[in-house]
Structures are given as structure tokens and as C-alpha cells.
């Protein structure tokens, strides 16, 4: 009988400093010589990580009450519009939000400025009510003056993503970077064999309640992410070959580090935010040992033409090819470039490994597993009633 470990056993070993923790890249290398049975004997936890631009990011902020108080019904932080429908002094600032007159500075930059301890101008308007008489306030806030600052990202850490190319004659600017005309470059974004959701493709250990590395501190998986899609085409190992599942994550932004949260502006596209996420995967049994053993040659991604409406698929390539510096599509050799940071992802995987090894991080059993067999609806255009 092959070995089966429990979360409790692994946590006890972690606390005692006796657990063996490897990064997903280290275990992939180990798997060239060791069988899954040997890996489950030797390894307790595998750390995975990613550091890429994740548009679906933002922060919940509570500003605290002024005297006299105001029911904030229009809110601007350094000119960036924030959501005003939460409550009197609560707001959500989306990473991609921006003032159309200043499109290069957005919500992600406000979040980064807050993290770096800078002062931010808060301006808010209300209609004035009996209990909230004030109609306008303009003041400065910073990370220490506000109550809560909670990162809440509804869709992060995509399980695989597309490779982007452009077959048209014009250069295009996308969230996958600048795509040169006539298939002159290809960009890719996941960290391949180090990627969190590619090491547990069927979500046997990742679910609601999973404790993770988030932006430099401990955070949690709080829900399946939006556009959670588990019925995408898969390869023979069961690994999706295109963008599939996602996770919603949450954590205390006040504890995070600007090193792992970074505002970004993409030319002619807009603002986004790089987010560092690391997920520990417990090697509970042989099946999980097989999953974490996956290597770049066994993970494929779909090459899509971002220049053409409908982004038609032009082929499939492996992460090994992508990392080699060039891929071949229709006989044509195309240069590849990453648009997410593997060096940072490695740093996160190693930092998380250290937290685990020093007993500062407990792995958690999900309180609820993710749904199975989900697919996506597209937005149909019907005639609106009150046009």
C-alpha cells in the first residue's frame, strides 16, 4: 500500500521542523529519477507560485468617520474613482479603475502608493442626511490613518493562459504586452511547472479556506474565482491547455509588501496590477505526487491570434518550447517572451518554502472543495426592454 498522509501529520512535521518542502521546480527535477511512490515518501509539501499582472484585483478600504460625518456617495482617491455603494465610509478600489483624463494612474497605483506609506488625497461627496450631514470632504489619508485595507481579488492565478501572437500587419498593444505584426513575437504568462493551479489541476488540495502566500503575507483562497472553468480542453495528463480555472483571494493589504504588489500600465490598454501568489500543495498521496511532478514539457498552451476578432487558435506549444526562446507556428519560427516574472515567482516559492520549513506557515485543509464541471456563459445581446 502506498503512503497516505493527512494534513495534521504534515503540520506536525512542519512544526517540528522535520517536514521536507520542495518548490514545484525542484520536485519536477526530482521526478526525473524518482517515482511518484518515492516522492510521496520523501516530500511533504510542494510550493508553487506566480507573479503576473492580474487585472481582477482591488482593495476594500474603510476610511473612518469624520466629524461631522459624511455618507460618501462619490469617492475619489488621488482622482481615481472608487466604488461608493458599500456603506458610508467603506469603498472598493479596483486596480483597473482610473480617471479618463489621467489614464496612466489608476487604482493599482493608489494601492501601491498606500503600501509604500504615501499620502493619498481623499475627496468625497454626499447629499447630506440627518445622520450624515456633511456634503463634502477633502483630506489626506495614508495606510496608518485608515481602518481596514483588505486585498480582495475575485479572479487571480489563472490555471494556464494563452500564448498571444498577432498575424495582422499592425502592431497591437494588449494586456499580453506589445504584439508585433506578422507573427514576429509571441508572449506567454504563466510560470509553467511552478504555476499553482497546474500542480493541482483537479483541485484535490486547493479550495475555499486554503491558506496561501499573498503579496508577501498570509492570505486565503476565499472562493472559486470568476470565470472558473473546469471543462476546458485538457492534455493526456488532465492539465488544461488554455485558460481554465481561477481563484478568488483575500488578505490584509496592510501586511503586504510593495515587492509583491506592483502597479502597472499597459500602453493603450490601461492599468493593471502584478500580484504575487504562492500556494503550498501537500503531497498527501501518490496521485498528488504525480501531479506536482509535472514538468514544462508536459504542459501545453494554446497559441491565439490576438489581432483577429474571436482570437482564433493557431496551435499548441509546450512551456519547454516557450522557455527555449522560440516556438514554431505553421512552420514559422517565432520569438517568445514572458510577460510575467519567473524570477519573482521563484522568489515567492522559496520564501513560502522557508515559512513552511521554519514552522511559520500551516497548511490548511479546504473547508469546501471547488465545484466540478463548470463552464462559462458568454454575454448574449438581446434587445433591452427600456431602450
Amino acid at each position: 500500500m502506498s503512503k497516505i498522509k493527512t494534513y495534521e501529520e504534515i503540520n506536525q512535521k512542519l512544526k517540528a521542523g522535520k517536514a521536507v518542502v520542495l518548490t514545484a521546480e525542484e520536485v519536477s527535477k526530482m521526478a526525473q529519477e524518482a517515482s511518484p511512490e518515492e516522492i510521496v515518501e520523501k516530500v511533504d509539501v510542494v510550493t508553487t507560485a506566480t507573479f503576473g499582472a492580474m487585472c481582477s484585483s482591488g482593495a476594500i478600504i474603510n476610511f473612518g468617520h469624520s466629524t461631522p460625518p459624511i455618507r460618501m456617495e462619490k469617492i475619489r482617491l488621488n482622482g481615481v474613482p472608487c466604488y461608493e455603494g458599500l456603506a458610508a465610509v467603506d469603498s472598493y478600489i479596483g486596480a483597473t479603475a482610473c480617471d479618463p483624463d489621467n489614464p496612466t494612474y489608476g487604482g493599482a497605483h493608489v494601492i501601491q502608493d498606500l503600501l509604500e506609506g504615501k499620502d493619498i488625497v481623499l475627496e468625497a461627496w454626499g447629499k447630506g442626511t440627518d445622520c450624515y450631514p456633511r456634503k463634502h470632504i477633502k483630506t489626506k489619508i495614508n495606510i496608518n490613518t485608515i481602518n481596514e485595507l483588505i486585498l480582495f481579488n475575485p479572479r487571480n492565478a489563472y490555471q494556464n493562459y494563452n500564448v498571444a501572437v498577432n498575424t495582422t500587419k499592425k502592431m497591437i498593444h494588449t494586456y499580453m504586452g506589445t504584439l508585433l505584426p506578422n507573427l514576429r513575437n509571441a508572449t506567454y504568462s504563466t510560470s509553467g511547472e511552478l504555476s499553482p493551479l497546474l500542480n493541482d489541476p483537479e483541485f484535490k488540495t486547493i479550495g475555499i479556506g486554503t491558506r496561501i502566500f499573498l503579496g508577501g503575507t498570509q492570505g486565503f483562497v476565499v472562493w472559486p474565482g470568476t470565470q472558473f472553468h473546469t471543462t476546458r480542453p485538457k492534455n493526456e495528463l488532465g492539465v488544461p491547455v488554455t485558460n481554465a480555472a481561477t481563484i478568488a483571494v483575500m488578505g490584509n493589504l496592510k501586511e503586504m509588501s510593495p515587492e509583491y504588489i506592483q502597479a502597472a500600465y499597459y500602453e493603450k490598454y490601461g492599468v493593471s496590477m502584478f500580484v504575487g501568489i504562492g500556494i503550498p500543495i501537500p503531497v498527501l498521496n501518490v496521485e498528488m505526487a504525480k501531479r506536482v511532478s509535472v514538468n514544462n514539457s508536459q504542459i501545453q498552451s494554446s497559441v491565439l491570434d490576438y489581432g483577429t476578432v474571436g482570437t482564433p487558435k493557431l496551435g499548441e506549444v509546450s512551456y519547454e518550447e516557450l522557455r527555449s526562446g522560440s516556438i514554431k507556428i505553421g512552420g514559422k519560427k517565432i520569438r517568445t517572451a514572458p510577460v510575467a516574472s519567473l524570477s519573482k515567482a521563484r522568489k515567492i516559492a522559496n520564501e513560502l518554502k522557508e515559512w513552511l520549513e521554519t514552522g511559520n506557515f500551516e497548511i490548511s485543509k479546504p473547508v469546501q472543495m471547488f465545484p466540478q464541471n463548470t463552464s462559462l456563459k458568454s454575454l448574449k445581446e438581446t434587445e433591452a426592454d427600456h431602450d
Partner: protein
Amino acid sequence: MIKKRYILNFPPESGDKAFTYHLVKDYDIRINILKAEVFPGKRGSLLLELQGKKENIEKGVEYIVSHKIKCEPLDKRIYFQEEKCIDCGNCTAVCFAGALTMNKTNWKLNFDKNKCVVCELCIPACPLKLFKIDFN
């Protein structure tokens, strides 16, 4: 021997003359074409690195200018705020001169200034806006 970069702008009527040949033959200048854009019958531009004796380069430039070609020394350089780089790789996607590459071992960005042809494509490509033009 000195090395200097020039950007040449050709009016339509000068596009068919063998300038580079003369620079080599008559002025003993080594030429490295860093970038060339030629639109037949219209204008064209050449980014050249000239290497040779100082007086030869001066004479060669005089020769070019005498043929109504605009010739400006290229003093601008691409400046990069390395300490803020997150090694995302976005800039390497557009740098065909090979000045910006990813180190395949540690996956950090490598910037080889000597290969830069100042095409300026990396400026908008970097999501952190770390590239700037430095006019010396």
C-alpha cells in the same frame, strides 16, 4: 579611432546614391547599419554607427550633408531604472536588436546597452515605465 552614431534622413531625390560605399571607400570608415527604413520614392532613414579616424568621420559627414541628407549625431541613449525592474519580460518581446533579453538561468532581465539601436519600442512596452530617453 572613434565610434559615433548618426541618424541620416534622406529626401526622396537622394535615395539612390551609394553613400555607404563612398564612406567606406573614400573616407576609410567602418559602417555598422543599426536600423534602416527605406520607403522607395519617398523618404528614408538610416541609423549608422561610424568607426574611423576623427577627421575622416568629419569629412564623411560633410560629404553626406553636401548631398542634402540630414545627418544628426545620435546622442540619445535609452536609460533604464534597473532597481525597479520586476523581470516581467515585456520589454524583451519588442527588442529585436537583442539589447534586452532574459537570462535563461535566473530569468532576470539583461540589458546590453551596446546592442541598443534606440528604436524606442521598449519605452511603451514596459508596464512599469522604466525606460526613458537620455539625451546625454
